[in-house]
């Protein structure tokens, strides 16, 4: 009974925030903080007490650490079926943590319609938790689409107007249309899958465990896999589908960026690992080279574009494209080490990107601009913030001692035996990564100063947030074992699916 509460807490908390706005502007903030803290603590408790040696694997029914099942729409065989294994618990913990941070980082930034803002924020997080827990495909899709609406409002109503006539409403609409259209393609794929299963067994069901047993003709499997892949690729974002991301990031309020980079992108990676690979292992194996090259392309292309940006938030947004490229390579490499690396990389990128966006937000509150041409020389004008930024930039470029290093290292070492060329090219992405990270630091914090006026230092709230994140990132960098242990069973299962498919493919050739 504990899993539904993980979803209900944010939804109820959001409604309370909205209703209590009429009494005070601060009350919704405290309610939201409390809501997110309880979500985080609950998730942590589940992580600490749970036994995550159970996870879905080929052959036999999927087994879970926690499970919840309730009838919803029996007419179509739809159930409210939630389940948790090592992978989902990590993602939920990350969601809870970033939820707390996104409430904290908008404490001063958001001053109007506070209640409604927190309603949207809480509902996004509730939807994301739903995506991470749902193992009924209808329910999964339900949450997948549902979280778009509050995100849309967040960008459209509290966003910053961008440069060159790019309005926040356009950015929000672009985000919505990209994700919604690709989501419908996935819905078509889901329904086709269900119909094929219906023809084979005579049962209407959207249940993950049952659909895993569906048999396909090779051609059909490939098409269905593509249907899923398109939806995930847009959210990921894989390069030809990425153009909504920089706009959305640049225009979103800090909390929106934190959620977008920190967890919304992770839902796509999670979806690939949880659904796309196990449901369509043969087609995925066949598709793997293409996906890996797309990943390589994303790494290089994201890095190059990142280097060319003048807007600091767009720079970080493109760097996300680059970092998620590593995750894509890892997912399709079929290697357990790389897959474990992908999980660590997702966590580490969630933390480091969130921190960078929070720092940008703090900078924006003080300077009123995100344009790096207007910055320069900030190192001398304020304490703490530049140095912390330097730390996270170093983390983003994969400095040993941070979680990002562990993630990227595992991904590269794991994928190398299977795909030496892809891995070699991807490794050059690390060099590009250091170029754009350092150039960001150089342009923003060093160089000639535009003004000598000292800037307001960081408050305790702001300092705690970023230092806490830095601490976690170092912890993940020097002792990633708990994370690796938790996700081991899940990745092992998925890799088993993949490797048997790879073997079949090799034999066929």
């Amino acid at each position: 009974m504990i899993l539904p509460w993980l979803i209900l807490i944010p939804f109820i908390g959001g409604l309370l925030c909205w209703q209590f706005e009429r009494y005070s502007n601060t009350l919704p903030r405290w309610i939201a903080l409390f809501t997110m803290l309880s979500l985080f603590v609950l998730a942590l408790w589940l992580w600490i007490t749970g036994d995550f040696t159970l996870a879905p694997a080929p052959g036999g029914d999927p087994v879970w650490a926690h499970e919840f099942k309730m009838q919803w729409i029996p007419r179509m065989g739809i159930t409210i079926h939630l389940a948790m294994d090592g992978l989902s618990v990590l993602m939920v913990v990350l969601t809870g943590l970033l939820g707390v941070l996104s409430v904290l980082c908008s404490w001063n930034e958001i001053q109007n319609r506070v209640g409604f803002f927190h309603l949207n924020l809480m509902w996004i997080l509730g939807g994301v938790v739903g995506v991470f827990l749902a193992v009924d495909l209808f329910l999964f899709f339900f949450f997948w689409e549902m979280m778009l609406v509050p995100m849309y409002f967040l960008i459209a109503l509290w966003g910053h107007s961008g440069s060159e006539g790019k309005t926040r409403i356009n950015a929000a609409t672009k985000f919505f249309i990209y994700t919604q259209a690709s989501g419908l393609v996935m819905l078509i794929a889901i329904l086709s899958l269900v119909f094929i299963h219906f023809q084979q067994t005579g049962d209407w069901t959207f249940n993950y465990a049952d659909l895993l047993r569906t048999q396909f003709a090779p051609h059909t499997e490939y098409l269905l896999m593509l249907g899923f892949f398109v939806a995930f690729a847009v959210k990921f974002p894989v390069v030809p589908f990425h153009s909504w991301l920089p706009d959305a990031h640049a225009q979103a309020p800090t909390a929106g960026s934190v959620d977008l980079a920190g967890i919304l992108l992770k839902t796509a990676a999670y979806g690939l690992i949880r659904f796309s690979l196990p449901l369509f292992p043969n087609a995925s194996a066949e598709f793997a080279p293409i996906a890996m090259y797309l990943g390589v392309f994303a790494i290089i292309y994201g890095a190059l574009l990142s280097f060319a940006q003048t807007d600091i938030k767009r720079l970080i947004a493109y760097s996300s494209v680059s970092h998620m490229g590593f995750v894509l390579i890892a997912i399709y490499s079929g290697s357990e080490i790389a897959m474990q690396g992908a999980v660590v990389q997702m966590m580490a990128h969630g933390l480091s990107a969130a921190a960078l966006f929070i720092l940008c937000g703090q900078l924006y509150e003080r300077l009123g601009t995100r344009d790096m041409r207007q910055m320069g020389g900030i190192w001398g004008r304020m304490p703490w913030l530049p140095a912390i930024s330097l730390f996270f930039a170093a983390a983003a470029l994969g400095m040993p001692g941070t979680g990002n290093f562990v993630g990227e290292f595992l991904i590269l070492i794991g994928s190398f035996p299977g795909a030496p060329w892809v891995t070699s090219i991807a490794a050059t992405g690390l060099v590009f990564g250091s170029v754009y990270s350092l150039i960001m630091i150089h342009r923003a914090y060093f160089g000639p100063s535009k003004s000598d006026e000292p800037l307001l230092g960081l408050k305790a709230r702001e300092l705690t947030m970023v230092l806490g994140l830095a601490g976690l990132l170092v912890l993940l960098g020097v002792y990633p074992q708990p994370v690796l242990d938790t996700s081991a069973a899940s990745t092992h299962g998925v890799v088993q699916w993949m490797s048997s498919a790879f073997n079949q493919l090799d034999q066929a050739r």
Partner: protein
Amino acid sequence: MDFTTQHLLALLPLLITSLTIVAVMLGIAWKRNHAMTFGLSVIGLNLALLSVFAATSVAPLQVTPLLMVDKFACFYMVLVLASTLACVTLIHAYLGGESGKGYPGNREELYLLILLSAAGGLVLVSAQHLAGLFIGLELLSVPSYGMIAYAFFNKRSLEAGIKYMVLSAAGSAFLLFGMALLYAESGSMSFAGIGQAVAGGAPSLLVEVGFGMMLVGLAFKLSLVPFHLWTADVYEGAPAPVAAFLATASKVAVFAVLLRLYEVSPAASGGWLTELLTVLAIASILFGNLLALLQNNIKRLLGYSSIAHFGYLLIALIASNGLAIEAVAVYLAMYVLTTLGAFGVITLMSTPYKGRDADALYEYRGLFWRRPYLTAVLTVMMLSLAGIPLTAGFIGKFYIIGVGVESQQWWLLGALVLGSAIGVFYYLRVMVTLFLVEPNLHRHDAPFDWGQRAGGVMLMVVAFLAFFLGVYPQPLLVLLAKFSIG
């Protein structure tokens, strides 16, 4: 044929509606009183709604060769009656409570017209004979000319009425010609008779042309592209509650009879007719959405979006298998609910009548900060029209996609995805307008006590249903699965 109590029971909804018409007419002749006319109409419609339960108890039953009262008909009767009832409450709000305020002309006849039209709808949904179809269709359409032009001192309203009349007459001409051709070939006027006569072997050219022309006639009423030219102007010109009626009850009834024709006479879906219908569907989806894209008038926008929605519905009609009938029922129920809500908000914003409706998009800027609940209703409606989860529209779209996948209509599904993507843009545009910063503009505004009036209560119910059915559609789906033809 003997007329038994059972037949009377089956006809009860239609009889009660007709009696209400007579009572309202006599009432108006005796003494003009807005409240009394409204009360009579509402009581009559509610009784008619209740009597549908009596009709279901004897269904399926053939009443005269013209009508077939089966579960299918009963469901659409409920839909037509309920949407008429909603429109009547909106009309009451729109025309203004007491005399001297609001609408300056005679108010009572509008109720008479809408009831007549609803009676036509009831005939249409149970028609199983070409004559029944035509009687129902004309009874549905002719009063609506009057309703559209009801604000006759407003040029746009008058223009819309005349435009609708001319095009509707043209549509009827096509329909009659098609019927004549079908009769010439098959020698029968009942749907089943035509189906039997032309079954076996390829349908002759005469039959195909006959069905094609009937399709054109009905496509006029459903405003499918390329027979949609009247839609936006009529929706804009007609008083808001009348536009709501046109978009809901009228279209639902016509679609129901089209579906029955398709199911009972399978010849209709042979040969190039299917291709024709596919082209109509794709064109409606794409053009409807594209034309809605840059509208600044919310009534025109809803008009174009209704074209697109009937394009989606055609997917189920073309599939005509397994889930199709159920999917149409689900989608129409969702569509009616949502459209009533959207037009309801427009009506209440234009209430009481002040010469023109509040239909320009800028009048809705920042509505959230003035009327949060009214805005919440419109937001849910827009999300539902766009088919986003948590709203009824999503379940409808889910079913349509399900049917499309089942019958492997990949082209149509592609059009649907593309159309939805375009659609999201303008629905979101309307939605975000509601939340934008308020300009200093108060030209049109809903009265403060709108929530307590019948129209406001109705809107709240509609919004709640749209949300509830989006989250828990099981009861409706179980109910609808039983509503088969025959």
